[in-house]
């Protein structure tokens, strides 16, 4: 579904990604593990069309998407749940969700949108209770859910999550990950999960990659990675 070959990204003159290649198959949950500043977010931004200078190829459903504008990439079916949530804080929950439908919104498909809204509220009941509240006044966990829900509103084929666990209490993280698994079971949505918290990420994924200083240093099936010494040592805190 997504196929990345020798992707390089520069910020100023610094090479933030040094020739990254990876692929994601339809219906998979793939995870990308790496520390702070290892290039995870850069990679995601490059896929979503938000990075300034990139070279290489990124094929999505066999179509080159590198260099396309973010608005087109969203329309093609890639939706990003960004790091730090990136909500429209002074707007209501409802407005945030409706903006998620921007890529296909028209007067004609109002029905579809309202049913999609209902579906989102079913998935995240807490958002349904807070429709009219400003997004900035939500708690961290609720904001993260809203961010995911907003991404889902655009009818994505591939959902990319950038560190959804950051700064949240373990209990809420657990809740969010349970929802993700539920989502996967119900819709067979393809997901690309980027995490610093390797334990969590490896729990839900089927395959994974490890990135360090802008390079993929390891890849493999879930079990392979979980038993890899390097991963154990660096990311799971076990000797």
């Amino acid at each position, binding site marked *: 579904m997504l196929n990345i070959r020798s992707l390089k990204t520069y910020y*100023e003159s610094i090479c933030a990604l040094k020739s990254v290649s990876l692929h994601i198959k339809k219906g998979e949950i793939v995870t990308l593990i790496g*520390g702070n500043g290892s290039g995870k977010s850069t990679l995601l931004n490059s896929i979503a069309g938000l990075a300034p200078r990139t070279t290489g190829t990124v094929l999505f459903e066999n179509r080159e998407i590198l260099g396309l504008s973010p608005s087109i990439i969203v329309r093609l079916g890639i939706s990003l749940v960004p790091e730090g949530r990136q909500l429209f804080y002074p707007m209501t929950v409802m407005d945030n969700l409706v903006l998620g439908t921007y890529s296909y919104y028209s007067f004609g498909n109002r029905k579809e949108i309202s049913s999609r809204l209902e579906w989102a509220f079913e998935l995240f009941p807490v958002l349904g209770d807070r429709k009219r509240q400003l997004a900035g006044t939500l708690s961290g966990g609720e904001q993260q859910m809203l961010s995911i829900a907003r991404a889902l509103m655009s009818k994505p084929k591939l959902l990319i999550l950038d560190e959804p666990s950051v700064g949240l209490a373990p209990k809420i993280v*657990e809740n969010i990950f349970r929802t993700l698994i539920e989502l996967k079971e119900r819709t067979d949505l393809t997901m690309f999960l980027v995490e610093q918290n390797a*334990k*969590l990420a490896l729990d839900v994924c089927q395959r994974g990659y490890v990135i*360090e200083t802008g390079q993929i240093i390891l890849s493999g099936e879930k079990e392979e990675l979980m038993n890899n010494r390097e991963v154990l040592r660096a990311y799971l*805190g076990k000797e």
Partner: protein
Amino acid sequence: MNNGSDTILAAKAVTKRFGGLVAVSDLSLDVRHGSITAIIGPNGAGKTTLFNLISGLIRPDSGTIFFKGERIDTKRPWEIPYLGISRTFQNLRVFHNMNIIENVMTGRYTHSSGGILSCAARLGAARREEQKIREKALYWMKFMNIDGIGAKKLKEVPFETQRIVEITRAVAAEPELVLLDEPAAGLNITETKNLIDTIYRIREIGTTVLIVEHDIDLIMEISDHIIVLDFGKKIADGTAKQVRNDRKVIAVYLGEEYGKQ
């Protein structure tokens, strides 16, 4: 372990709220003179907030902070470095409008005194002072193994060098306490090794190092003392060994088991 004269920095019952969020909650800690002390904890645990409190960028809602027995939480941010505290930032705050040596020279600000008029006239004293600043900057660049690139612009050198420049700037102030906020972020293994080396050498010249870092290996290797924060609270405190075996720390920070607790 709170043994008076040995303590260079002490925080007592410090609380800081942002709106509804309690970033630092009733936190007390001591940093021993000449030690390498690490602060670890998950994202959002309040580590950077703590650094900002120490360097005076924000003021605590309650509680006090002492440096060498002097109360510093009421001081303006620019007064803090004169006492002997300097710091680096998590997101690399170097000055792209200056070349590298000038960046390091800004670190000497507290050790120089020329005002705008004497600098303008460049009288003998100001010229000598400028000369001294440059010499000292060169000295510290050499100390940090980045000599010879002073005339370069920051964007001409790799990210890791920029980080070193920032640390050099902090060290050039010849502080008694240096705060390093995630110095290893974005560095690869070799670079991290060099960093460890550097931190040791900073400590060798008598500077106390307080460090926030995610790289657990680095922390375990270099720290004399580790403080673990979670949700603004201190949950553990001790040597690397003590902390590593602390159940609570394993649960919260090392990402294991907390789902089942």
